[in-house]
């Protein structure tokens, strides 16, 4: 034994993963301190975004009565576009607009502060404006705490939970994620634009607290990625998410891609007269299951984006729910390990087992091949145009020339975009295998 531990557990980061971990530990009666480098929870965090609240049902019953929500998403649209065309699948649900809801737009400075508040109310301690600068280890190499930038003060505990986000310097220091590969990461840039609530309601066809989520493919000049447009109460969020190495190679500035999207004939009418309030940027770990680090070491666990747990598979960009699910599971695993006095990697192994039995690793495992397909050249550069031309071929009235049959239209569209029908069939089957 070295110096006695002041806490049962130290959690680094007060994002959704960290707050969920601290909440689980505090509820179990453990003394837990959360260290956050920003001046308040959420101050360093950026997402699209929509939070899918189902993960909260078991943790905070009727959370929807107290969560700081902007709008409840009742309309979700997946749009494919070329420079001057677009084709969308537009789903609308009345059920999504009433409790228990499906997804909500919310702002991270509000949402993360709320969730951190749940943890502190349960007894966790939150220390803000403090950076965890490194791990403290014992002579056997076991993690026994962290160093901070508060005059180098150390915080010691038998278990440290690294919820320090996508750049996780702690996971790297621990050797759990030896070297991050740029191709597994995307850069997200976002503009939040002021728009009066009435304008949002009229343009997006909603009322009251109803909101809309539009995901867009084909708007990034061929750089693998996608775009998004979300409605908040009195602002809209518009942005793009693009592959890091491809962005650097293309020599395109990220804000140019947002400007493209804002000027697109299918998007511009939504944004008329809006005004930039805040511009922001953040990375997304998109590699999925195959790129996750080892989740536990002696005295340490990794959760949320620090463990690459964002599910980014074209149709989905979900990270907050995965962070909450993994953080809570890590907190519970820590409690069990502390109870039996074994915080070694073996003692913490129930964390991974728990994640495999719930959506966090089950979804990731099932969709492990999805990131590669969604970011593939054909899906990114050819299919949006192909599908738009297909729609154009079917819907353009050509009198007096008779209508072309579906197969002829498909053949013509595929040929124009350099796609063989065989490739189309292969990708369809591949897509059905991955997503089906």
């Amino acid at each position, binding site marked *: 034994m070295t110096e006695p531990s002041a806490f049962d557990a130290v959690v680094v980061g007060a994002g959704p993963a960290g707050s969920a971990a601290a909440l689980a530990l505090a509820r179990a009666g453990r003394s837990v301190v959360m260290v956050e480098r920003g001046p308040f929870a959420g101050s360093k965090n950026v997402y699209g975004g929509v939070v899918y609240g189902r993960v909260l049902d078991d943790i905070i019953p009727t959370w929807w009565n107290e969560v700081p929500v902007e709008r409840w998403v009742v309309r979700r649209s997946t749009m494919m576009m070329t420079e001057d065309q677009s084709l969308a699948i537009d789903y609308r649900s009345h059920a999504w607009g009433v409790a228990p809801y499906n997804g909500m737009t919310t702002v*991270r400075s509000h949402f993360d502060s709320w969730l951190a508040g749940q943890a502190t109310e349960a007894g966790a301690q939150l220390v*803000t404006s403090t950076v965890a600068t490194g791990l403290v280890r014992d002579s056997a190499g076991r993690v026994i705490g962290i160093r901070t930038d508060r005059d180098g003060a150390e915080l010691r505990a038998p278990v440290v939970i690294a919820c320090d986000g996508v750049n996780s*310097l702690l996971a790297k220091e621990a050797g759990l994620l030896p070297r991050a590969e740029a191709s597994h990461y995307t850069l997200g840039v976002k503009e939040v634009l002021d728009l009066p609530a009435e304008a949002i309601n009229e343009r997006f066809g909603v009322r009251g607290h109803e909101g809309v989520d539009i995901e867009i493919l084909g708007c990034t000049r061929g750089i693998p990625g996608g775009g998004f447009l979300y409605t*908040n109460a009195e602002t809209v969020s518009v942005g793009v998410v693009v592959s890091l190495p491809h962005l650097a190679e*293309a020599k395109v*500035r990220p804000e140019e891609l947002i*400007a493209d999207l804002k000027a697109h004939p299918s998007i511009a009418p939504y*944004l008329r007269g809006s005004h930039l309030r805040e511009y922001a*940027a953040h990375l997304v770990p998109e590699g999925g299951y195959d790129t996750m680090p080892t989740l536990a070491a002696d005295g340490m666990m990794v959760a949320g984006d620090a463990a690459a747990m964002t599910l980014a598979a074209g149709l989905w960009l979900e990270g907050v729910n995965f962070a909450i699910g993994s953080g809570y599971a890590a907190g519970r695993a820590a409690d069990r390990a502390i109870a039996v006095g074994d915080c070694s990697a073996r003692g913490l192994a129930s964390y991974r087992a728990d994640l495999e039995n719930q959506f966090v690793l089950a979804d990731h495992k099932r969709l492990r091949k999805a990131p590669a397909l969604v970011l593939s050249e054909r899906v990114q550069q050819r299919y949006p145009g192909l599908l738009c031309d297909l729609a154009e071929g079917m819907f353009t009235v050509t009198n007096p020339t008779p209508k072309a049959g579906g197969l002829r239209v498909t053949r013509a569209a595929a040929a124009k975009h350099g796609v063989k029908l065989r490739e189309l069939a292969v990708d369809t089957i591949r897509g059905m295998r991955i997503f089906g």
Partner: protein
Amino acid sequence: MSEPGSVNETTGAADGSLPLGGDTTPTGALRWRGISFEERMAGVDFRVGARAHITVDSDVCRSCTTRGCVTACPANLFAPTSDGGILFNYEECFECGTCYMVCNSEGAITWTYPDGGHGVVFHHG
């Protein structure tokens, strides 16, 4: 004319827009469809710390052929110098990590977080 940075009412395009490509003002500032980079960053809350949390070794950059950081950094903080190096200013940084991820030259970038409570504060993240 509406204010700079707003979206044009009739065309839907941003004011002063070009169909494609950026524009450089006489002073050389990067403008993008009516909104200058300075205007873009003006709405972001930065609590600048005394310590440069990121440093760039310009000597290493001189032999770099890719220069991915120059265009990819969302805060546009990497400025090429006439002698082939890089001039870097840490003050208005999003702390995103793009630069060290796209840089392939060992030792060019030393990347840490700003001291606690300093750096960018997002209010609408």
